[in-house]
């Protein structure tokens, strides 16, 4: 197993936990209420190097690994998911594909500013007509014309795509068609589109059920032209690129989910020790004790699941199934814990000013984003050898 108590991981966890407690917790409720992106918190996250955790030092990163990122996500989400998803999307979806697949020039151009959080990256895969259904639901196209890609289409639910500090969006697009096994299939590639490129329009923020202090937008591309060299990695490799990106991302979302589940445990344990009903603190009632025990079990199990997936990832072993299991278990844990924590808090749990109210609103998306729970089950079954659809 990964040595999570190992000095540097433990110290990083402690450092981020303290940051979350001291910097995020006191103010995030207000940002959430106003649906406002917390630029000052993001700047401080950048100053402590969170955006550069898995990025090598030569690109201005911290020279850590993906597990370090997961630990940071968990500790942030224990207090608030909006800032956690901002970090997750910026690093896992924005920076990592450039690090993994980018040319030397692309890495040199983008990574130093992405690693410090001075600039946020985003990844445009999902479209209004489909998320996981690629290429079936994909309509966005990019065609070469005079040394430039001309992009047309739209993208939906793209995190970090419309902030003042958004620098670049990786856009998955159909760049042609290929013959494969006697069938003509779309060729998918990823193209880096700098923020502010003419023809690239960012719509206003969605009104969301949760993650209210994060930035999520619909994007549209109308004859948006970028240089040919903005192609990320090889032409036609877009599908393989985002499959790898999403496998890693699932471990990160599992970590974030575990953080939310743990936040529910923390809050419930504290509140149940203070709240008096029928003459006793409610933590003396078995109905509450069992709920808290169940919450702890879910959190613990989900944490082990994501640690295991991360361990395989870092060891270079196949981890697709483990990542899907971790994401499924952890998002369930987050949802169930949020429901139980809200129940323990009673009427106060339904108030936005208490963290559990935020946890409740933030939990549901974890069963949807980065592949729905149904998609996770499909992936797990496929990894077990059952035939594809």
């Amino acid at each position, binding site marked *: 197993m990964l040595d999570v108590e190992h*000095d*540097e991981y433990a*110290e*990083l966890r402690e*450092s*981020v936990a*303290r*940051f979350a407690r001291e910097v995020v917790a006191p103010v995030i409720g207000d940002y959430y209420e106003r649906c406002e992106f917390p630029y000052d918190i993001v700047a401080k996250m950048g*100053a*402590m*190097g969170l955006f*550069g*955790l898995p990025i090598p*030092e030569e690109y201005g990163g*911290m*020279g*850590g690994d993906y597990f*370090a990122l997961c630990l940071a996500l968990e500790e942030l989400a224990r207090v608030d998911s909006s800032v956690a998803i901002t970090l997750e999307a910026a690093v896992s979806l924005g920076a990592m594909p450039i690090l993994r697949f980018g040319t030397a020039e692309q890495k040199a151009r983008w990574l130093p500013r992405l690693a410090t959080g001075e600039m946020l990256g985003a990844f445009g895969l999902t479209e209004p007509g489909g998320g996981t259904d690629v290429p079936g639901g994909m309509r966005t196209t990019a065609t070469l014309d005079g040394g430039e890609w001309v992009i047309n289409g739209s993208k939906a639910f793209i995190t970090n795509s419309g902030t003042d500090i958004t620098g670049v969006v990786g856009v998955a697009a159909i760049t042609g068609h290929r013959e494969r096994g006697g069938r003509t299939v779309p060729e998918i590639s990823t193209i880096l589109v700098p923020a502010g490129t003419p023809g690239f329009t960012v719509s206003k923020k969605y009104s969301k059920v949760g993650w209210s202090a994060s930035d999520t937008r619909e994007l549209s591309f109308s004859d948006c032209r970028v240089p040919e060299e903005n192609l990320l990695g090889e032409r036609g490799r877009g599908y393989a690129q985002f499959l790898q990106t999403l496998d890693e991302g699932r471990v990160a979302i599992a970590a974030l989910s575990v953080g939310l589940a743990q936040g529910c445990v923390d809050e419930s344990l504290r509140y149940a020790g203070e709240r008096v009903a029928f003459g006793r603190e409610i933590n003396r009632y078995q109905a509450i004790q069992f709920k808290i025990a169940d919450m702890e079990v879910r959190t613990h199990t989900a944490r082990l699941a994501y640690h295991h997936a991360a361990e395989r990832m870092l060891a270079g072993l196949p981890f697709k199934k483990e990542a899907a299991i971790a994401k499924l278990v952890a998002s369930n844990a987050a949802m169930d814990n949020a429901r139980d924590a809200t129940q323990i808090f009673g009427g106060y749990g339904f108030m936005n000013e208490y963290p559990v109210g935020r946890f409740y609103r933030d939990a549901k998306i974890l069963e949807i984003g980065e592949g729905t729970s149904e998609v996770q089950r499909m992936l797990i079954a496929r990894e077990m050898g059952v035939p594809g659809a």
Partner: protein
Amino acid sequence: MNIVVCVKQVPDTATERKLRSDDKTLDRDAADGVVNELDEYAVEEALRLKEAHGGEVTVLTMGPAKATDTIRKALAMGADKAVHLSDDALHGSDALSTSYAMAQALKKIGFDLVILGSESTDARTGVLAAMLAERLGAPQLTLARKVEVDGSAIVIERITDYGYDKVEATLPAVVSVVEKINEPRYPSFKGIMAAKKKPVETLGIADASVDASAVGLAAAYSEVAEFSAAPPRAAGTVVKDEGDGGAKAADFLASKKFI
């Protein structure tokens, strides 16, 4: 500029803190040790001065072996190296003998500027900066909310009840800081990794030319004669509003001499 930051490991204020029944000294095993909060501001200020003027930041701590955690935290924030003054003979030292031992270590290390928090959250004597300055024959600039260095000149803003005093001196000097001075950074992962490779020199009392008879519990001028646990928190008083809630609340506050 050669800056030495004095940091102290203290029991976490969020946990229950106790004195030992045998020798009436702090029970360091009973609570988690953390960096004294004001010392984090001192480390931050030292790092900012180094970033602005160049030089080196050395962390100095006096404490048992367990205090290495505190040293590592300061190194993870960005300090360059550390000196750990650690010796069983130092156990139970009061503020006077602590200042003596620390001053001896500081003379050995050498410094242009010594920075420390204005007090610790455990003993809270708040006298160490003044004592160190006296023993080192250096000017003392205490309770700083701002520090500026220009060549060998140093100017601080010292907080007072009425605002602040501007105090000037020439380096080498001793400065103590208050929490208004800055916002300490959180250690980054790179800082945490780098801290493991930074040199930490451990000094016993002989290495620092500290006279054993002048330190420790036996040499302390002050003594804890007696102590008792804080009384358990009493049940609160509920004021029922029957049209006179305001007056009752005021009476209660007056009875406690708050108003």
